[in-house]
């Protein structure tokens, strides 16, 4: 059997295909083509995300305006998703509710994730007592389920948008730190990190330039999961009356009070905010799963 050596032009083609930098659109298109389920997920997320961003222009009514001539109206041409017991347009409230959900979800996920990233990589890099003590502290925080921890934080600091973000961010930090640390521990041992140390690079440079970029895969995946968790947690806190307060439009808040009181006579008050929560979190989870598949070389080609 003869094995022909690859021609120089063939090698160049391989390099072009696998190593040459691609444009962002090409990367996105490639991702969507390979991960159609993820494409559905990101589409759902984008629909709700853009609805929140452009709510001022898209909403047909003021989401906080009462209209006593239209109390508990069923879905119609005038009110696509109906109205609540105070005559407020549900479509408008869901659009603005998306804004609340994404502000909380993205902020909590980003701040909690980045803090967790720094702590996780730092813990793995320094090791020894730093790693030992930091991990024990994170263990304590992680001992409490996310919603319980969030309830504790809200009880201490009070309700309101900022405090809700804080309440959800804090329990996310150790979860991210734990995942990132496990990846960073392996990276700490690779030769190029040793080489960087040997060349006299500082800790910060080694962490930021050589370790953080190599844990971005799991980090991005967990961040997407956090967005969904944070949106759910915000809805739960608002439903319990501990999140944002009326009349601020928020999906969890819309499920509280009137939605329960009118569940049998005006079910649309509960159904549509519930659907919004479900579809958004569903979309985020689909996207997150696909992103994980895409970034994991073992899963990519399955």
């Amino acid at each position, binding site marked *: 059997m003869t094995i022909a050596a690859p021609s120089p032009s063939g090698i160049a083609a391989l390099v072009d295909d696998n190593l040459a930098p691609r444009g962002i659109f090409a990367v996105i298109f490639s991702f969507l083509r390979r991960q159609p389920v993820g494409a559905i997920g990101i589409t759902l997320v984008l629909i709700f995300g853009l609805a929140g961003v452009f709510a001022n222009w898209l909403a047909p009514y003021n989401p*906080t*305006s*009462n209209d*006593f001539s239209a*109390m508990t109206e069923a879905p119609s041409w005038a009110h696509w998703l109906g109205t609540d*017991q*105070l005559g407020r347009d549900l479509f408008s409230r869901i659009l603005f509710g998306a804004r609340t959900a994404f502000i909380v979800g993205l902020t909590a996920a980003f701040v909690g994730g980045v803090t967790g990233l720094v702590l996780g990589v730092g813990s793995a890099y320094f090791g020894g007592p730093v790693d030992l003590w930091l991990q024990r502290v994170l263990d304590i925080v992680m001992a409490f389920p996310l919603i319980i921890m969030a309830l504790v934080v809200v009880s201490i600091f*009070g*309700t*309101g948008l900022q405090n809700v973000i804080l309440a959800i961010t804090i329990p996310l930090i150790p979860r991210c730190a734990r995942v990132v640390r496990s990846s960073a521990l392996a990276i700490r041992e690779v030769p190029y990190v040793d080489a960087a140390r040997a060349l006299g690079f500082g800790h910060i440079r080694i962490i930021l330039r050589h370790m953080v970029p190599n844990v971005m895969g799991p980090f991005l995946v967990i961040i997407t999961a956090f967005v969904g968790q944070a949106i759910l947690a915000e809805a739960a806190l608002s439903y319990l*009356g501990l999140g944002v*307060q*009326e*009349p*601020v439009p928020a999906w969890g808040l819309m499920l509280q*009070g*009137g939605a*329960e*009181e*009118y*569940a*049998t*006579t005006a079910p649309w008050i509960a159904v549509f905010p519930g659907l919004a929560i479900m579809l958004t979190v569903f979309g985020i989870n689909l996207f997150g799963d696909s992103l994980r598949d895409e970034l994991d070389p073992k899963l990519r080609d399955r």
Partner: protein
Amino acid sequence: MAFGLRYSLIGFGAGLGALIAAIGPPALAETPKRGGTLTYLIPADAPPTFDGHRETTFATAHTGAPFYSVLIRINPENPGSTTDFTCDLCTEMPKPTDDGTTWTFNIRQGVKFHDGSPLTAADVAASLNRIAFPPQGILSPRSSSFEMLDKIEATDPNTVVFRLKFASTAFLPALADPFAWVYKKAILDKDPHWYEKNIMGSGPFKFDVFETGQAIKGVRNPDYYHKGQPYLDAIHGIYAPKQSTRVEALRSDRAAIEFRGMPPASRDELKKDLGDKITVQESDWNCGSVVTPNHAKKPFDDARVRRALSLAVDRWKGAEALSKIANVRTAASIVFPADPLSPTKEQLYEIAGFWRDIDKSRAEAKRLLKEAGAENLSFELLSRDIDQPYKYVGIWLIDEWSKIGLKVTQRVLPSGPFIAAQRAGDFAVVQAANCHGVVNPLIDVHPYLSSSISKQNYGNYEDPKQDELLNKAMHETDPVKQKQLMFQFSKHVMDTEAHKLMILWWYRIVPYRSYVKGWKISPSHYLNQDLANIWLDK
């Protein structure tokens, strides 16, 4: 008491009773059955404390009333009346002497506290002295209700004498306050705060157990002094702040009754689903939503700003709409709307926030804000985490204020922290309720008096002029002149100074399981809550 006023009060009482009777269940004479446990719902997370002398919330009343006795009360068989006072611990209702300034009550003999010790006149005097003349460090929001009172004495173990500074029609209603629980003097002497965290009375039920945020339980007091009562073996109060939880508990028969009141939608839903298994009693409610700006915080020290807040709210339209979804119904002054002392509608139209033309009213509000340099004002409204009617009224008010350019957010707190925040002055504007037991406007308006006089006034203001106006009304015995003085007082409080904003009066709807018998609705959710006359027809 002047005959004119007496007749007008009796007429009012009879009228209110007739109204309640007309919308309540038919009164059939049935023989009470003994036994069973009443499971009832308390629409709050927990009482701030157990001390009825200190608290003004139903959360405390519905928790503690079954364990305590009072000196006198509104007749539990006729709780809709405003004049039918009967004895609880006394033996008979006395006639006043010394031109109406001395009231001598004989105390029942043989009454025992739940710890087995005898209840005497000294315990009654000590308890009422604690309410009327609270010692240093003791909070008594009802002390101003007793401003006609000079002193209370236990002249012997069975006699309590009340000496008044001046004769007043407001004395008996104040004395019949359903929170005027009789405590044991020996305990009060040892620790004046003991009753804030403990329960021990002489009422129809003995305290069994309190589970924080969950339940309060009591068992029948075999030594109870009203013959044959209580009919129940035990009571079980469940704390359930969420409206939907309470409706489902009634629907599934996990609980038999919630005494405070439910909105029309819940009544209709339960009645539709359960038919005859649900009975409904309804009544006007001596309870109103009141907004109080904190005068200690700028710009609410400015009457123009406070007046603008009131002028922005369209109470006429709001009452009509909100009555469909919340337990509010009537736009009226600070005087109970069905009372003879209440202003006429024409007089009401003169008061800020009650003008016929809301556009003109809001234009004036904007002008006042501009003049006061408070255009585009933003502030936080403190509210309570109880759906009915706080949540609905709060959302509605914020929308109404937005129509004059105000940006208002809401801080919603559970009952305990809510009351604590009010007492600490930790708010800019608060939406609360002015609720009372016996309908008696001369006493019921006391929370509007200067903060140094009324411990229920969390507005942090002093206004001797308005205090003087009410003082004159208290002393006036001619009903026509008294009504005029009350209008002057109301206009001063609601319009000239706009110290507080009377929003809407509530309407009480109590749907309950039809096997619950013996309970009769009243214009107050504080009244008739010792549960001694309730029995179960199961």
